């Protein structure tokens, strides 16, 4: 039984939303964050992100496939989980999950298909036997790779990215809304919550791509493209500043207003969450990477590639820790304080084994990387023309040239 300091309602001493509910926003955060990176390239024409655009999309897709598992694992009745999709009760924010998740999955799958369509067709033409049948199935019976068809692909990618970006933002903002709209819990109840979730998702997604890009470059034995690393570091810095500002703003307003809940929340932060909030979320995962990234961004032109790679990767790893601790502090922290606002329960320690244990959480985080590896084997995540053994991709300019499709739409070489 947990120890209580002060007074908690007798039913209020349990952590109902366990480690799995920490994992859920962490994983969907990668989905949204990685998609933001791919949108920067496909929608906003950040051509310097071309080396990671496909990696970002594949990462978003891989994490999305795993995203619903932690929810399913935490339900008291997992076999009734589909009821949320089939008979949703629409006054509940949670009931929107099916539509948001399903809709975004459809958009992302379509976009993946359009982006990789040429490779699918090329591989279908190159392979034999079962592999050929597999790629032919993936090609959905259309083998047209004429410039006109590719131009159609590019337009489709642009449209899908345009729908997908708000979709990704909604999918993750809504997770924040689930917490932010619970008036019973003062640690959660703030309209800032969806925005904080979304901005921190961008941090985690960009940070993950910085690390992944370094790893992929090492594995491929190619140097990481420095303009791309610089750009990722710059975006990461921006979103980290935003997320820290918003997280501090939330606390500052509570403290300044001396709201009725501030007494217990200040005790929560300085006792139960001292390590995970003050030390990890704000200092180790917040302040330190902010300084490291400031160095990378402000002294960009003077940095040796190795220094830039090391500093940005170290900062990115700390950012990944920051976002995890932020999820932990919100989900678990909010359940350590009683709704009586008079007491706190002792620390929550997740089990090691079991449906909602640490090992399961690790498996959930590792699963997307396994999917990503399979994705790479099947379709390749390198930009066209870079993958080993691939024929040099030829330019497929849209009618009217690049101006018609905008810069950086699709993965065509100029």
């Amino acid at each position, binding site marked *: *039984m947990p120890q209580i300091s002060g*007074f*908690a*309602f*007798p*039913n*209020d001493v*349990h952590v*109902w*939303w366990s480690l799995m509910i920490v994992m859920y926003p962490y994983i969907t955060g990668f989905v949204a964050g990685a998609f933001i990176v791919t949108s920067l390239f496909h929608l906003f024409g950040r051509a310097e992100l071309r080396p990671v655009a496909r990696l970002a999309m594949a990462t978003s897709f891989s994490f999305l496939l795993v995203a619903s598992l932690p*929810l399913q694992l*935490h*339900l*008291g*009745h997992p*076999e*009734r*989980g*589909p*009821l*949320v*999709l*089939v*008979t*949703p*009760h629409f*006054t*509940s*924010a*949670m*009931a929107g*999950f099916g539509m948001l998740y399903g809709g975004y999955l459809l958009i992302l799958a379509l976009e993946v298909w359009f982006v990789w369509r040429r490779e699918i067709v090329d591989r*279908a*033409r190159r392979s*034999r036997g079962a592999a*050929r*049948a597999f790629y*032919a199935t993936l090609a*959905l*019976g*259309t*083998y*047209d790779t*004429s410039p*006109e*068809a590719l131009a*159609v692909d590019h337009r*489709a990618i642009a449209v899908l990215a345009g729908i997908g970006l708000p979709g990704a933002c909604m999918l993750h903002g809504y997770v924040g809304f*689930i917490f932010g709209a*619970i*008036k*019973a*819990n003062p640690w959660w109840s703030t309209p800032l919550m969806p925005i904080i979730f979304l901005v921190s998702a961008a941090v985690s997604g960009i940070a993950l791509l910085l690390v992944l890009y370094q790893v992929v470059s090492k594995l491929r034995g190619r140097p990481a493209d420095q303009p791309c690393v610089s750009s990722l570091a710059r975006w990461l810095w921006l979103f980290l500043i935003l997320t820290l500002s918003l997280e501090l703003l939330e606390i500052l307003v509570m403290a300044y207003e001396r709201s009725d809940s501030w007494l217990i929340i200040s005790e929560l932060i300085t006792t139960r969450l001292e390590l995970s909030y003050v030390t990890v979320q704000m200092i180790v995962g917040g302040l330190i990477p902010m300084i490291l990234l400031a160095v990378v961004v402000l002294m960009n032109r003077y940095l040796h590639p190795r220094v830039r790679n090391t500093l940005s990767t170290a900062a990115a790893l700390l950012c990944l820790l920051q976002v995890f601790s932020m999820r932990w502090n919100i989900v678990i922290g909010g*359940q350590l304080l*009683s*709704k*009586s*606002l*008079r007491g706190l329960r002792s620390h929550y320690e997740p089990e090691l084994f079991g449906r909602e244990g640490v090992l399961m959480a690790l498996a959930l985080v590792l699963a997307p990387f396994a999917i990503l590896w399979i994705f790479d084997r099947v379709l390749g995540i390198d930009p066209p023309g870079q993958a080993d053994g691939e024929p040099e991709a030829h330019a497929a300019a849209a009618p009217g040239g690049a101006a018609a499709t905008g810069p950086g739409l699709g993965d065509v070489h100029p």
Partner: protein
Amino acid sequence: MDDRTPCPAPTGGPSTPRVLGRRAFLEDVLLLSGGAVVFLAGATAAAPAAAAEGAASAPPAAEGYQPWEHRWAYLVDPERCIGCGSCVRACSAENHVPDGFFRTWVERYVTGMDGTSVDSPNGGKDGFPALQVAFVATKSFFVPKMCNHCRETPCIQVCPVGASYRTPDGVVLVDGERCIGCAYCVQACPFGSRFLSPETHTAEKCTWCYHRITRGLRPACVEVCPTGARAFGDLRREGDPVRHAIEHDRVAVLQPHLRTEPQCFYLHLDGEVR
């Protein structure tokens, strides 16, 4: 996105694959997914009740009971409560409440100029041992608590499958056969009235003993209270003492600022109680 360009069949592949336009393909996908949803809905609706074995389903109303003829309300008089815990024990026995969880509980308040102490050892089930406080105590009282059966209830609002619902006679219940055990309602209840049962893995809470009140009986906790600190009444009945007290006496509800419109009223409630 039409497919006017002829598709060259891949060399050496299947003789000639069926040329399927993108538009036609998308139509097929839509048809298929629509069918899948219908199938899934049917499959889920027909899911065997065996899965829900042991689930505490909503207590059935008695035969011939007309819910719209009643509007139930609960009245607590903290000044009469002596903290004996009979109500908690009766509730536990009547509703098979799992150990360590409470559909009703009693809180003890000891207050003075320099502090307030609140406790509820084992929900007050075993009464209250003597207490030493570190300040000069000037006032002490007990407060029975339970689900407030709110009219604007956050728990019903947040249930993703509609397992929590409000009956026409104003009682908030959980359908244990539908509840998926997500605990969103537990998080949303400001009063700490709900819990997930470790036995049924579904949300449970006080039902005002719906199985009793629909048979003309009173809730178990009201039945056993030796001092009349707990009273249960029907706001639709002329001359009902609970209705009279709510209409004419000083009553308050818990956490009124949250605007959940509790139907559990407290006489002369002290400001320390949340």
